[in-house]
């Protein structure tokens, strides 16, 4: 595929805790193109979440470089990384995604407010995205008043509403029942299909593997397999 969005070259990550050193990633080389719907699979401790954190600018690699749209992420300051995450990355986590004291609308607006999007435009985009994720009418509810599936849909809405280049989803279906998980995956697949939003998942969920167009297998901090699949999603 053309249009390389993300490139990782020789990425290593070592965690230190006193005298103990744990090498979580050992030389990752990976390209991710615009519009991909890819999943990272592998056992616990294989480095999936760490790689996702590095791609999202939540952490910096110990070695190697990561570029997003040609911009090197690895040489950014803390402040630049914040701006980078705000403008280019959307996150969906396994749970506790939403800020419980903000309403659905406020949660979705959050990134746009940081970006300085005018109020009217924010409200229009919130209304449109809520309709798209099937949550119209729940604008004023607070997260604890929503089901787990609804909360994850709000998280997806928040991740895509600011129009990021890449959405990183860390075990997004792990806390959902199979019906809600399937509905959430269908929603993300539709967004990928209709809006060319790029998704990279870290997951153990077979349903995600089944839908992913690319399956990257990690083992002991290395890429063990990288399969592209036609007809998925």
């Amino acid at each position: 595929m053309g249009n390389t969005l993300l490139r990782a070259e020789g990425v290593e990550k070592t965690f230190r805790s006193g005298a103990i050193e744990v090498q979580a990633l050992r030389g990752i080389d990976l390209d991710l193109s615009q519009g991909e719907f890819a999943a990272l699979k592998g056992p616990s401790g294989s480095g999936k979440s760490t790689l996702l954190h590095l791609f999202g600018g939540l952490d910096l690699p110990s070695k190697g470089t990561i570029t997003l749209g040609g911009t090197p992420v690895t040489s950014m300051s803390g402040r630049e990384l914040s701006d980078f995450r705000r403008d280019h990355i959307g996150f969906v986590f396994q749970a506790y995604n939403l800020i419980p004291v903000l309403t659905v609308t406020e949660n979705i607006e959050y990134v746009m407010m940081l970006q300085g999007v005018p109020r009217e435009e924010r409200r229009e985009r919130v209304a449109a995205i809520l309709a798209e994720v099937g949550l119209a009418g729940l604008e004023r509810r607070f997260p604890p008043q929503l089901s787990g599936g609804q909360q994850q849909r709000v998280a997806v809405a928040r991740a895509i509403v600011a129009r990021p280049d890449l959405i990183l989803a860390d075990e997004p279906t792990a806390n959902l029942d199979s019906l809600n998980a399937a509905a959430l995956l269908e929603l993300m697949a539709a967004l990928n299909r209709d809006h060319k939003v790029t998704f990279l998942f870290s997951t153990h969920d077979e349903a995600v593997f089944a839908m992913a167009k690319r399956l990257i297998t990690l083992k002991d901090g290395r890429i063990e397999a990288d399969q592209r699949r036609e007809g998925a999603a």
Partner: protein
Amino acid sequence: MPPRFGALRLIFLLALRNVFRHRRRSVLTGMAIGVGLATVIFGDALWLGMFTRMIRGATHTFVGEAQVHREGWRKRRELEAVLTDPAALLQRLGADERVAAFAPRVLGSGMLASPRDLRPVLLVGVDPALEPGVSALHRVLAAGRYLTEEGRSEILLGAKLAEDLEVAVGDKIVVTTARAGSGELVQELFRIGGVVRFGIRQLDEGAAFTTLPNAQGLFGLGEGFHEVALRFREETTALEVMAGYWPTLAGPGNEAVGWPELLPEVRSILELSDFMLWIVVLLLFGIVSVGVMNTLFMSIYERQFEFGVLAALGTSPRSLGLLVMAEGGWLALLSALPGALLGACLGWWYGYVGIDYSGSEFAGVTILELIRPELHPRQFVLYPLALVAITLLASAYPALHVARRPPAETMRRGL
């Protein structure tokens, strides 16, 4: 780049809602802040009320709020050093709008002899009509009656002095003095018209009072006098530094001084008390700030993943720190209002009923009236502002902690 206005608004809104997230904890911390503020406001009001009573006790009992003397008289106390141009001085004082009352006095040493004993005294000549305007002489009679202008050869004795001399109202007593200039001894027989009890040891033990003409006659001063005691319309006048005012008031050759110079021990006690009040304020606010810090740390430890999510969404470290500080700020603001109200209620109630320390002597000053806390706008501006500032300062540490932590670490391990 500072956060955009919309983002700032959101951060402050988020902070406010976070304060109400754990109501019981916020209410308890808020109560500590509020009660701390109320204590400081009430304490200040109480000090202020006590100072006012002390100053009034010191000045209104006998000294006056200010005095005019011949230059140098206060150091040497020479009998001959009477005020220059006394008529013009009294006329000037009578015309001064700031002066509420004044009373001329003669002061000299003498010896009082009763059939049983004799004692050295400070013999004070007063104008019976003007003296009540500046002192409590007419109000502290323990027996007998106050001096009258016609009361030739009448004298008032301090209560302890009368006891020592073993005399009572109506008894006769011999006063011996030296005349100004010649030093010639003069003796005169007086009848005790009354006994006074100021509650001030020096006066009760060693002072006797007669009319101004009697004292002028005994000391051979003619129309002269040594001192004019003053009371101002505004109590603060005696405290004001008015370079031009005092010399104009006193006139050439004389000097006017306010009570802080006349009663340096009272001034020192007040300064020390002021300093102690600030120590108490600092201690209380220090305790409150540690409480706030603890609450904020508990709160951020519970929300560690949430801070990671906020960082993941693009919230800058500075904005995360601001969020924590805003939570501290809201906590202080929301607690300051009821705290100030509680302080006002306490101040008002005790101002209404008063606190009875009357009769006790403090730094040589007898407190004559009930102590009533005095509320002042300064207490409701300065202390709440200081409280908010100290709370913000206390929030800075947890804020820095949050801002400095890398987001991935926060999500992986917690703060």
